């Protein structure tokens, strides 16, 4: 644990000696195991050990208005002394080529967590135990697939069940003397089965992902849910086109919330690539919508004490009674947008800093899914979306879908080979209800939502 932190700090020091104005380093070490079973037999076993380190170094240059900063970044999996030396040489050479940016924010003076916060976090989130054991993971995968296959004689085939678990160690150090690290575990179990045959085949799946194997839903429940979902798709056919209300199940609501956070990304706003570019402070949803980014949730896989720049992560009510309260920012975007840094810097080993949330929670409403169906009367329940038809600049939206036709408040038959289309700005405004069925998906918790006035395209 400490070695990664030390290596990061050492790298920052080396960059300083090589002439960097300032630098920060991120190290990640990953250990993971997974096992896949199919028709009751082991299909594959995987074990991975990896580690890597990324360095970002800033250099001073003469700009039009005096001294300005340019930066470059590089990563390597070679953490030997010679590997680190070479990494520093590479970054310094590239920083000379990189253009200075008058708004550049060096890794100095960020609002880091203090020693007390670090200790408290360590105490509450310490993961001394492995996330799971390989034998338990294997048994879970076998039990999960068996439950799915035995659920009905109509289940005709299996894509298998997979269980996996891992531990990741993340360390960060910057030129202002901050150095910290934390560990995270995760465990997952999934299964996918097929019903029907030939032209009529359908597959569906279910999964769970938690901090530890113990916290996962029962394997049998996941298996039965996958089987139920697959069976109810049998006999799916097309439907006619029209404008109608649509209910998104929690598993597809996640994608709608994803589009929201992409558009609320402060860097995308600066680049004029967001349809929400002028929307801070405005009501972009009806007033019953509240969405929170919570970096410290007992169930959240997205928990983090500090972000990719070492800034302390704080709870943010991104949407408060329908109003967009802030853009998501790292220190650079915050500086340009003249707001307080949000602690949303997301960083991998390679490349530039991005922006992302920790755990996003869409506050549930009071209506069950049955009540939502009754409420819309005639429309569509969407269970799966495919394709990439989302334009972040305009908000134009068009994706392939499958789900169920809703007639007189009830599900009548499965539908497929349809698309749904609209514009995200309108879709946000036309959310009609939020369901009560809050469901966690790793680092996002969402219920069903009903949206009015989407265009469905189908046969005829």
């Amino acid at each position, binding site marked *: 644990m400490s070695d990664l932190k030390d290596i990061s700090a050492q790298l920052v020091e080396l960059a300083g000696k090589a002439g960097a104005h300032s630098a920060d380093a991120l190290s990640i070490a990953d250990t993971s195991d997974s096992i896949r079973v199919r028709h009751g037999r082991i299909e594959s076993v*995987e*074990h991975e050990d990896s580690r890597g380190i990324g360095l970002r170094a800033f250099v001073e240059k003469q700009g039009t208005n005096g001294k300005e900063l340019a930066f470059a970044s590089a990563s390597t*999996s070679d953490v030997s002394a010679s590997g680190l030396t070479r990494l520093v040489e590479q970054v310094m050479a590239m920083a000379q080529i990189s*253009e200075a940016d008058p708004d550049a924010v060096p890794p100095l003076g960020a609002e880091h967590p203090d020693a007390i916060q670090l200790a408290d976090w360590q105490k509450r989130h310490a993961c001394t135990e492995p996330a799971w054991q390989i034998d338990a993971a294997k048994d879970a995968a076998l039990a999960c697939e068996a439950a799915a296959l035995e659920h009905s004689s109509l289940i005709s085939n299996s894509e298998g069940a997979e269980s996996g678990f891992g531990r990741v160690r993340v360390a960060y150090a910057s030129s202002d003397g901050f150095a910290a690290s934390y560990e995270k575990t995760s465990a997952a179990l999934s299964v996918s089965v097929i019903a029907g045959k030939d032209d009529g085949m359908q*597959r569906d799946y279910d999964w769970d992902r938690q901090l530890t194997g113990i916290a996962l839903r029962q394997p049998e429940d996941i298996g039965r849910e996958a089987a139920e979902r697959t069976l109810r798709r049998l006999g799916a056919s097309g439907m006619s086109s029209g404008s109608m209300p649509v209910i998104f199940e929690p598993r597809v609501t996640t994608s709608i919330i994803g589009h929201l956070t992409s558009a609320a990304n402060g860097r995308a706003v600066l*680049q004029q690539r967001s349809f929400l570019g002028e929307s801070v402070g405005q009501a972009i949803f009806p007033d019953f919508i509240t969405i929170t980014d919570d970096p410290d949730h007992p169930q959240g896989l997205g928990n983090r004490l500090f972000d990719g720049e070492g800034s302390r992560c704080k709870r943010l009510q991104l949407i408060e009674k329908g109003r967009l309260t802030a853009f998501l920012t790292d220190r650079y975007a915050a500086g340009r947008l003249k707001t307080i840094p949000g602690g949303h810097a997301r960083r991998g080993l390679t490349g530039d800093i991005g922006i992302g949330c920790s755990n996003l929670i869409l506050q549930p409403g009071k209506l069950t899914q049955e009540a939502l169906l009754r409420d819309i009367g005639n429309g569509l329940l969407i269970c799966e979306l495919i394709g990439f038809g989302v334009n972040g600049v305009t908000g134009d939206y*068009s994706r392939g879908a499958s789900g169920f036709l809703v007639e007189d408040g009830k599900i009548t038959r499965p539908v497929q080979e349809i698309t749904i289309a609209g514009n995200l700005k309108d879709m946000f405004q036309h959310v009609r209800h939020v369901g009560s069925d809050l469901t966690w998906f790793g680092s996002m918790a969402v219920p069903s939502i009903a949206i009015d006035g989407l*265009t469905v395209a189908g046969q005829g």
Partner: protein
Amino acid sequence: MTAAVTNERLRAMKSAVHPSPTISSNISIADSTLSDMLHAMTPAGADDADLYVQYSESESLALEEGRVKHVSSSTHQGIGARVIKGEASGHAYTDSLEPSALMDAARAARSIAAESGSRAPVAVHATEKRHALYLPQNPAAAAPMPERKALLERLDGFARKLDPRVKQVFANVSSSFSDIRIVRMDGAELHDVRPLVRLNISVVVEQDGRRETGSAGGGGRFGLERMLVGEEPERLAREAVRLALLNLDAIAAPAGPMPVVLGPGWPGILLHEAIGHGLEGDFNRKGTSAFAGRIGQQVAARGVTVVDDGTISERRGSLNVDDEGTPTERTVLIEDGILTGYLQDRQNARLMGMQPTGNGRRESYAHPVLPRMTNTFMLAGSDSPDDILASLKHGIYAVNFGGGQVDITSGKFVFTTSEAYLVENGKIKAPVKGATLIGDGPSVLTRVSMIGNDLELDPGVGTCGKDGQSVPVGVGLPTLRIDEMIIGGSEA
């Protein structure tokens, strides 16, 4: 299982700064160590086993707001060890080259087999490759970073001068190479160095408060210096600006079934989604594909021939050998409308009693091998593109696309237009906004009624995603008329 292809720039790219002039052995692991690993990991009854030793470097420069302010590189190395017995496989991945870590990986890969005996030790011996489709080089070696930076600045100025409505220009040049040694169970070793370059430009335009975007890109397995000279960069900039401006005038696309004419080149992602994924060996061996058991059946109109060809010189989807050391091939998937073949890696081919086709691919040493496409395209027909467009009474002419995705089991697939037009009586009426087209893989090609004589391959921008793994691919298509597809516009 769903699988997808996009033309976004490489996400999983690894990267380099110092040009490595000669690439003969970037990773120094003794043959004897590899031989010891193979011995330790391979039970006597194994069907197959291999080691995949990879060293990769990549570099990227990106321009934004007129400045090249994002410069990055990465250097990664590691080994994947794999053992196969029947339908089961064991995998271990490590980026530590310490002997103890390597032997731990060998033992972990072996864990699928209960037996204790091992195969006799083998000596690692180099083997010749059949193809030499690209130079074994660091593609950035002859294009110094300052020249790449100057290229991006030149493009920025050029794009902004094209039209005052251009508000933002983003340009990116990236290059990488992957140095791979594959050591098979019998000790045969194949060495391949794979260069890959990519240039991309996208713009945001604004008019009367409406903003739109357009992008264009190109690349392949050749030296980056070739992208710095000539008119190609300017052509890409012009294309990005043209698309963005076109979108300013786009009207809502219709919703519902219509005849569609696809333009040549990148619209070949139709084949990738509708046909290609469904013909990958793993899905067919397991019977989970909508195409399972259909060899010999008619799945397309007469005249439709679709191939997957990994042997085209310098193409983004080409490989000298796949990631199991099998030479790539030209595999005919559909011949004159009849389904003729699957895409195979070694394990699925063995289990199906077929031959491997050179389609076993992995994103990196840290991923398992899967049957994947290389360059997938339809052969040209005899119709003139003008006649095909003229045949369209009321429909959509789609020239450019974003990404696509397919549900392997139901066969339903989508792809989304980025340049498309409403056509009335054979004449283009108006550009339409991006819309998703949805269809059924096993039947969509039976509705092909005209095939153009103008086969084109895409400009070298495709990245295919399957099971969380990204690999570079190519597609191609002649102008094609499909009598009916569902257009997912917002105009009901």
